[in-house]
């Protein structure tokens, strides 16, 4: 390196392009290595198998009178099971909801039973039951008896969990 005859103006390497190429290749390989090595760590933060195994919940419908609701836990989330009165069914069938219009028939399997995930679609608080639907205490979103958002900051209707009736008075959620 310390060749005194060489002036500083001259390049230090014979073939600068070759060196550039080596630098680029080293950078790319190192970058790819870091990305690959970080994958297990990122993935480890996703739900573990025991959390995933909480995927289904069996819920009994006995003992819920018309107009009453019950909350069950599914994947750690509350699920509202509402047994609707004839009046409520009539009102809900007649309306399309609020800012996220949807027919009541698309949100139920049996008109008596409304089953929705009890987390406000705004920021995930649990809305509290009121006579004409639900009201979220966090930021004031209002839902009707079909779980459709009427007003407030919530962007969409209460989510519908996948469920099926295994008998007249028992459902499996998930």
């Amino acid at each position, binding site marked *: 390196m310390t060749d005194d005859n060489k002036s500083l103006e001259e390049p230090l390497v014979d073939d600068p392009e070759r060196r550039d190429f080596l630098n680029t290749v080293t950078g790319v390989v190192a970058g790819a290595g870091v990305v690959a090595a970080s994958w297990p760590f990122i993935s480890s*933060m996703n*739900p573990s198998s025991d959390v995933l195994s909480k995927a289904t919940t069996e819920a009994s419908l006995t003992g819920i009178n018309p107009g009453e609701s019950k909350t069950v836990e599914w994947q750690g989330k509350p699920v509202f099971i509402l047994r609707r009165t004839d009046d409520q069914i009539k009102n809900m069938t007649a309306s399309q909801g609020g800012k996220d219009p949807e027919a009541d028939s698309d949100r139920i399997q049996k008109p008596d039973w409304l089953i929705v995930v009890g987390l406000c679609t705004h920021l995930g608080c649990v809305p509290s039951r009121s006579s004409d639907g639900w009201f979220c205490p966090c930021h004031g979103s209002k839902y009707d008896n079909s779980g459709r958002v009427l007003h407030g900051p919530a962007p969409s209707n209460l989510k519908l969990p996948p469920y099926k009736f295994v008998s007249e008075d028992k459902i499996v959620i998930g």
Partner: protein
Amino acid sequence: MKNIISWIDRRFPLTSFVKKELTEYPTPRNLSFWWNFGSLAGVVLVIQIITGVFLAMHYKADAALAFDSVEHIMRDVNYGWLIRYMHSTGATAFFAVIFLHMARTLYYGSYRSPRELMWWTGQILLLLMMATAFMGYLLPWGQMSYWGAQVITSLFGAVPFLGDELIIWLRGDFTVGDATLTRFFALHYLVPFIIMAVIMVHLVALHSVKSSNPSGINLADKDNIPFHPYFTTKDLFGLCIFLVIYSYFVFYQPNMFIEAENYIPADPLQTPVHIVPEWYFLPFYAILRSIPDLLGGVIAMTISVLIFAFMPFLDRSKIPGGAVYRPFYRALFYVFVIDVLVLGYVGAKPPEGYLVFIGYFATALYFGVFAILPFLAKKEELWLRKKGLPPELEALIQSEEKQKAERMVARRKAKRARK
């Protein structure tokens, strides 16, 4: 002793370092008490780390045990109550000190050239601090802890396309659960040490550009005095005053900053009737709530925190210093401070009635202040110069302009030489 130090000095620049960066470190002699909060924040961080490490010896980061382990610390551990109250009050003290530190920077224009990097590293520190405080608040596993974490992690659902997956990844569960608690504990322990590292960068930058001062003008060498004993004494005096106030809250009002609701264990099926974040998040929370749209609210809240970083670009006035010589800027500063207090009040109350509209208005004003600043700064500069600045100030502005022009010419020359 002398022998030991000279042994070290031959291997490590101990004496020269202490001299250059501490004892003989040149400091403007006109610093007011507003320049106390930086070192104070450092002390609070040390309090938080020490109390935190000792709390971690007794705390259990497990959804089934966390709440009881905090009560165990309060009741059974020797002086556990003291250490916990020091830690919870310390969080409040930390934000109070940092907000005052930021207010000083804004008022005296300390964010302006050449201290932009101080301001930006400070901004990173604020974000890290907010993250640490937020994650720490989940650890007692009370109702407010739980639902605060639920709401804030839900904010990430506003991210387009990836939102839902991102929330589940952050929580490690479908809702905030045991996995969330454990990772928050790990990160709550980690981030303060990252904060320490960023503080080092903040300090290296400080010791390169030196402290700003109330005049807003870079002082001549003769106007600087050594840091020791003048400012070690002053900082110690400030620390004593701080400790008096801090001790009052630790010993007499320890629960003032802890929501009563947080003494109820977390219940994933029941949201408290009225959720409020910690006081230091209230203004930002009010902005989030004031936008009647999830994505819009999240964006507005994010910008409301990050917008401070743009101050060096927004404020391009040539008038040196901060609010002292700039009546318009000073008025804007006070409008902003009052607006933040109003937002804090709105954020603490349920979103009902006229408060909703005050929230809208205060949110608009918050961003309005930043939006109007570039124009106001220019108008103010023209007005002040027309009115006639003191000749020293005018000379200073012109010499700055000249230096800038010279730098530009030198840069262009260097560019041409390279070609």
